[in-house]
Structures are given as C-alpha cells and as structure tokens.
C-alpha cells in the first residue's frame, strides 16, 4: 500500500503498519475531536459539524492591503499602447480581438469594468479590504473599480445565474503539499495557504488595452502570508489563468500586497475603460 509522506515522497506501508490502520484511524478521530478548535464544532446530540473556515483559518488575511507595483509597471500603472501585449501568452485569435480594442465602444455599452474581472483585478493597482462576510465567506473588496470578490468555503458555493465579473469562487485552506489544514490547539502557530478556484466569469480583459479572456477561463490562486523581519506583512498571490480560448499556455504570475495599519488610504474609484 502506498501513502504520500509529508515530504511528498511515496513510501510503502508495510503489512505490519496496515494491520493497525483501522484502530489507528479511530484513535485519530478520537484525538482530533478532543482538540479545542474542533470541540467548538460539535452540534447538539454530538453530531459533528464542519469547523467554520474563519475558525480554522491558518493565516489572517483580513485588513487593508496595498499592491506594490514594481513589476510590469508600464502595463499596470498606465494604459499601454494599443497592440502592446508583451508577457501575455495570447494566441492569434486573442490578438485579432485585442487589435480591435475600442474603449469608446466599451463605454457606450456600459462595459467599463471589462479590465476589472477576476483574472485581472489583482493586477490593477489599488488596495484590498479583506473581511469575513460570514464564517465561511471571505470578502475581498477593491478600491480600484469598486469590485467585490466573495470567496466561498465549504458548501457555501453560490447558485448559478449570469456570469459576473468576479465569477464564482470556491475557497479552501490547504497545506502546500495539497493536504487539508488541521486544527491546532490553543495558541500554537498555524500554517497553510488559501486556494481559490474561480469560474463562471463574465468575459473581459486581462489588460486594460483589450487583451481578452473568455467565458471558459478558470482562475486558480494561492494566497500566502509572509511575515518579514522588519515587521511587515505581505500577501503573495500566485495566479494561474487557464483560458483555452485565448491563451496558448496557462498564464502563471505572482503579485504582492503589503499590509497597511488602517483604511486611511482607501480610495474608491469606479471602473474606467481608458485609465
């Protein structure tokens, strides 16, 4: 029998070990349920309810965060020239469409938010305000474009309907190894990251100058929290944009946000098709 070790190395479980698998599993459950973080999750009559995402959060992403723009500056801080698609692995059809970019048309159609959809919004210079909307929904607001992302944990996935700029996001806390986040006792340190998969996104632009993404896009994100020696906290977001319609390969990038003490620099601004 093979199991995945903590270092990601496949090892063989001996028959000796397998012999104790059943009893160990029950023992594991017993211990798990005795942990403080899990005990709170017990319902009446002993029926176990899954722990709320907020309760078991391994990292605290709440607060105000500012994007630090020192990568792709010319393509993010200003609107690049028409036809400037550097770094984005587009295909010929995407280029054909982008070459037709006309912001006046977007404005006339009420589509000013095309470059603020989920696959693009984290690259837009601005600030994030992250809060818990409820114990299983993390809310990410942006001042640039005044967008709201709702990251739903567990069964809190939204119903269908028309695709939206921010799509439907399913969130999980995970270990880098892919395993689930385990509750830990008391004030013991917690580790892990946030994985978010977003689909059902209204088609829009990856870049302000009309580089398109399609309705077939799947956005996968990993949110990590770094604590620096100087006391600063940073969110690092690894983003993987998979769009079989307009991209030749999965577009892998990363972005960073620095924590701010408060919302004094929060500066909401509506979507703009030109700036």
């Amino acid at each position, binding site marked *: 029998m093979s199991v995945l070790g*903590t*270092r990601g190395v496949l090892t063989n479980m001996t028959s000796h070990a397998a012999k104790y698998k059943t009893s160990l599993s029950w023992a594991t459950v017993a211990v798990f349920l005795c942990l403080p973080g899990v005990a709170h999750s017990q319902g009446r009559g002993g029926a176990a309810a899954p722990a709320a995402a907020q309760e078991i959060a391994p990292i605290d992403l709440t607060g105000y965060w500012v994007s630090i723009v020192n990568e792709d500056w010319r393509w993010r801080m200003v609107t690049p020239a*028409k036809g400037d698609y*550097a770094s*984005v*692995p587009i295909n010929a059809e995407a280029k054909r469409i982008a070459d037709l970019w006309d912001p006046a048309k977007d404005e006339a159609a009420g589509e000013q938010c095309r470059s603020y959809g989920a696959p693009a919004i984290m690259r837009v210079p601005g600030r994030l305000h992250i809060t818990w909307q409820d114990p299983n929904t993390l809310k990410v607001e942006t001042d640039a474009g005044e967008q709201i992302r709702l990251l739903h944990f567990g069964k809190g996935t939204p119903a269908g309907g028309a695709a939206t700029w921010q799509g439907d996001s399913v969130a999980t806390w995970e270990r880098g190894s892919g395993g689930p986040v385990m509750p830990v006792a008391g004030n013991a340190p917690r580790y892990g990251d946030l994985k978010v998969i977003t689909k059902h996104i209204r088609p829009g632009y990856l870049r302000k100058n009309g580089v398109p993404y399609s309705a077939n896009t799947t956005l996968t994100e990993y949110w990590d929290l770094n604590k620096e020696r100087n006391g600063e906290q940073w969110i*690092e977001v690894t983003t993987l944009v998979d769009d079989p319609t307009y991209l030749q390969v999965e577009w892998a990038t990363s972005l960073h946000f620095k924590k701010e003490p408060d919302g004094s620099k929060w500066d909401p601004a509506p979507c703009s098709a030109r700036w």
Partner: protein
Amino acid sequence: MKKIELGRAGTAVLLLTAALVSVPASAEMDLAGNWNVREYQDWQERGAGPEVVDYLGLPLNAEGRAKALAYTASVLSMPERQCLYYTPFYRLLGPIGFVMWADFDMTGKVVAWNVGAGGDVGGLKIWMDGRPHPSPNAPHVFNGFTTGVWEGDMLTTYTTHIKAGYLRRNGAPISDQAILTQHFMRHGNALTLSAHLDDPIYLTEPDVLSRTWILGSVANIAAPQFAAPCTPSVEVPRLEGAGVVPHILPGKNPFVNELTEMYHIPQEAVMGGAETMYPEYRKKLKAGYVAPEKCVRYCCGWQGGAESGNNAPGLECVTNGGGGNVRPRN
C-alpha cells in the same frame, strides 16, 4: 499502582495527541526538481533587457539614482566587473530556470538546500542546520551566505555577505550591505519565489519581486554555455590595463528622456523612487499621460511553456526592439 496497558494503538493515540497539541502544524515541502522559467511578467526586462534608463517602481534613494545614471553597459568589458550582476537576486531578474536538491546527513536530516547555477548566476547553498552567519567583517562573495528555516510549508531564506551588484539589468545598484530575504512557496507544480531586498545604502524601502516557476522534466536554464557561474574574461582588449572605468558623468546621461519619448512616461516617474510603487502615484500620472498611438517594439512575447525558446509563436507581431524611435547606442 495499577499498571496501564496502552497497546500499540493506544501508544499511537498518545503520540498523535502530543504531536497535534505541542508541535506547530508545519511540514517541510519537497522542493527538489527542475523549475522552468515562465516569463509571463516583465518579459522584456528578463529577456532582452530593460530600457537603458528605466527605474520605474524601484525605491531608489538619491544616491542609488545617481549611481544608476552613471552606469554604462561598457563596464561589462572589464573582467573585474563582468560578474557583478550575479547575486542571488539575479534569479528573479533574468531568464533562467533552476534545479533544486537537498543535502542530507547520515540520519536523513536535511543539512542544506541547493539552488543550481544557471544563466551565469552561481549555485546557492541554503544552510538548514542552524549554523550562524559569518562575522560582519568576513569577505563578501557573489552568492553571499544563506541560511534557511521552514515556516510551515514555506522555506524562508536569509542572505548576507553579497557583493555589490545590480537590482535591475540596467545598472540600478545593490550595495554589499544589502540583505536578501526569500520565500519559496510551492503549490503543486508551481513554485513562487518572493524576494525582499533591503539595502540601507541605495534604497528607501525594500525592493520586492516575485516570480513563478513550473516543475518540468528539465530546467530550461538557458544555453549550456551560460549554465555555470559567471567566469570573467577579456573580451574587449582596449580596456585591459588601460585604467579606464567606463561611466557617464553626472547630468550627461543621453538616455534619460528615452522612456518619455517612446512611452510617454513622465521623466519624474522614470527616475523611480518609492512613491512610484504605490497606486496613488497614478493620480500624478493621469493628468498628463496620453498612451502612445500604437505599439512599435516588444509588442508580443513571452518565454516558457510548450514553446519555450520562442517568442510569441504563431503571432504576426513585433517581438523585438526594432521599430521604435531609439537613438543610436554606443
């Protein structure tokens, strides 16, 4: 006193309890493998190179800016300066993948992680055995001295004792007092490296870069001749022994207006500074900025993935620096 028989399952319960209650929920990740470069951001800068004077988004102080403006690529003709680009920070600046592997002791404990050489940057040894950093008076070397610690699934490393070098491939400087903190974050087949460079001499705030590499069967570490640490050699004999250090005198840099002419970026922004990293700086830009009518250079391109080695396969597009209104360069 009655003896309690635990049995193997009972022992396992106790051990598991102890582990869950007293030990942080951390686990080392396996970072070993070939990590392929993905130039899907800053493609021009990492491949062909940035424009000659482009300090956009760099938190330079006045001294750092002055030193950057004095730079000319001709200094690379001098053997003693040819390798100055290749501090560990270069992995985020250049077009290179890398191989990672661990060194174990005889008990199976990881003593060090290694990041292989590539693209002229030397291999990085990350000591995991708790050894101290050298004395502040110890010699500095290109790769510096690096220790690492696991923070949950994240490997955080700390590098001191580097040589003075560059933080952008156009001469923006790093001093030998700079300290580099890096976070290695693996998610499946993606490895994101976040680097925080803190330099009290030339920067007012840390310069932070992050890039993502993808696990592959081989690490595309550029051409084989560049897959080893930089080795200086005399390439331009006229400078050998001539006592000349190529430079540009203060106020004489002929390229300071280039970005403004080509991309309509105000010169104040081109000169960098921490202010240019923050979103509110866009308010300063908005009033006077008009986008160029069309793209004329480096309009399409990336590197990495199935078509590694090609720029913008299948596209009819300008993928190089031709077509722009660029002055002749020395």
